């Protein structure tokens, strides 16, 4: 029988599951009824799900979530012909009214989920150098700056950060004439010389969030 072996294995796993980060679920708010569908793509407590390409939103600043829901709704994100993944998100934001946008942002900020594991292969040391220009807006610890509209980067999935930096670089994000925040970031992304620099800077950002 497999059970005896399985059970001692699960004893160990269970301990891990009940550890500090996993208690998160209970500390998280119950999903508001009309926002359950956000969790279908973004995962429970909005923890992110790579299989859907939907990033972690848990614990993110409400002001930034609002900023992005408005950006999707206005068509600044998710309309560029190459932004196929953004198009998956766009109808969701388009269907929300202002009150719902606020509620969704609050829900995301209050949600708790473990900090995502690193998946991107980059050189954090090399990334640190690149990050010095980013720090002006996103802060040295990547905790963001609301006054500048620059979001915290810690706690986002690294694969999502890579895609956004590519999107900014390629003009897939931040090229709509009304998207002023996007335009600023687009100019900054242009400072990263190549794909390797993108991976390195993301590895550095990830190292900040796990510290």
């Amino acid at each position, binding site marked *: 029988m497999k059970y005896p072996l399985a059970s001692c294995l699960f004893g160990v*796993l269970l301990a891990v599951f009940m550890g500090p980060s996993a208690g998160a679920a209970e500390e998280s708010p119950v999903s508001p009824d009309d926002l*359950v*569908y956000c969790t279908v*793509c973004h995962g*429970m407590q909005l923890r992110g*799900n790579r*299989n*859907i390409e939907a990033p972690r939103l848990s614990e993110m600043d409400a002001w930034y979530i609002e900023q992005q829901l408005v950006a999707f709704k206005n068509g600044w994100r998710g309309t560029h012909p190459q932004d196929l993944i953004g198009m998956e998100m766009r109808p969701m934001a388009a269907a929300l009214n202002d009150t719902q946008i606020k509620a969704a942002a609050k829900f995301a900020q209050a949600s708790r989920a473990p900090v995502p594991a690193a998946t991107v292969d980059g050189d954090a040391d090399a990334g640190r150098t690149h990050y010095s220009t980013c720090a002006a807006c996103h802060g040295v610890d990547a905790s963001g700056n609301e006054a500048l509209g620059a979001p915290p980067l810690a706690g986002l999935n690294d694969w999502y950060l890579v895609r956004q930096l590519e999107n900014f670089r390629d003009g897939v994000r931040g090229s709509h004439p009304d998207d002023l925040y996007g335009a600023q970031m687009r100019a900054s992304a242009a400072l990263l010389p190549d794909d390797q620099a993108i991976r390195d800077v993301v590895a550095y950002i990830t190292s900040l969030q796990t510290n």
Partner: protein
Amino acid sequence: MDNLTRRRFLSLVGAAGGSSAVYKASMAMGLLADTGPMARLDIKSAGRGGKEVVILGAGLAGLTIAYELQRVGYNCTILEASHRVGGRSLTLRHGDVVDEMGYTQVCNFDDDPELFFNAGPARIPGHHRRVLHYCRELQVPLQVKANINRSAYVHESDHFGGKPVRLAEYVTDARGFLSELLYKAVDRNAFEQPLSEEDRVRLKELTQAFGDLDQDGLYKGSSRSGYKSGGFLGHGELKEPMEFGALLDSSFWRRGMAQSENFDWAEPLMEAVGGMDNIVKAFARQLKKPVVLKAQVQAVQLREDGVDVIYQHKGQRRKLAADYCFNSIPVHFMEGIPNNFSQDYRDALNAFERGNFFKIGLQMRERFWEREGIYGGITNTDQRINQIWYPSHGIHGSKGVVLGAYAFWNQSHFFERMTPEERIRYAADCGERIHPGYSDYIEAGVSVPWGRMNHMMGCGSRMTPENEERYFDRVRQPEGRHWMVGDQISYHSSWQEGALASAEYALNDFDQRARAAAAISSKG
């Protein structure tokens, strides 16, 4: 086939096509297993006190497992995130909600039981013995459903003047041309190994029969295409064969000509009378405990002697502690649902790729296709809608629901990115090129993009062949007392038979383990 004739057959194939053809033919001859009716499952009774089983998802797989286990005394609870039972088995009728994320639609067909649309499964072939077993057992009435219809059309935008051609004509001419070529090759003995005189004669006869060639081995048209004129009160006059070059240039032979030869699509197919969801409804009626709807599973925690499931229901987070868990939630969601699975199991679950389908159903105010001699079946087009399906039921009634688009796999994204109104308009324009006046007949329409459906986000999950090799066996083995099930855990994903095969496998595996555990505890 006895041994001698079988060997001769293979050597004939070898003479004509070389060794790879022989290999394929031998494979086909060896693959005659897995037929015959399904045996009723024999699961050991739960015994006194019962045991709690929690089933995640009320699709066909989940319902079947509940049905089988409650019969032998398990207390089964099905948690279903959606507002309805059935999962992908979805038949749309008047007033039904289409729960597409971002665009909730309400089906606006007339309130008439004949006017329905099978947005998910629509066809059952005779060898899907598990599906048929349960339809028999639960007395779900079935009827024959036309699939390939030789009177329906082949339409190609840039060939045959953009005009639809009857399937009969296309296929007959294609076979006629090919047969004529083969006849000539036999005549010239143009094979790697020489054929005996007797075999040459037979082969020529075979090509004549196959392609309806004349006595000189030439294809000059055939009554198999139907007549240009006459046939009843006057002599039937044959249609001129198409131009071979035009046929070669067209693409239907590549895309769809062999449709009816696909084992799962071969005639005759069946459907449930009144809508395919009558199968899942029949299961649901049997349940002692109704499915808990709008109960989204949010965490799965394995225990040493069971499984805890956290779910949200009526605005509250709840916990169900069960002895066993069967999980049919689409695998791509499991990464977003906290769990304490081992890394290798999670890797295996993440190795799946989401599949995708898209369908449109259109209510037509008149059954205009019947006036064109089309009764059921499918028209194929190279436009993005791919197909138009005509209903097999309600013949000569006043209205009918037609399938107005069926996109497969990545083709579906094109439609997903449109609003529901844009999709219907697009499908109407495509239909217009095949049936002039088509748009005017459309009274109502629904579109169902499976990649955007709530709690679903896809259909037909599959792995690459390498990952199948690596992970398939792992995903069908349980993780503790948790079994992953559904058509996704089969080599027949996007077929109900796959969902049932997976359910059967998991139940038998469960039973073997339960029996073994009972044997150990009775000894100790």
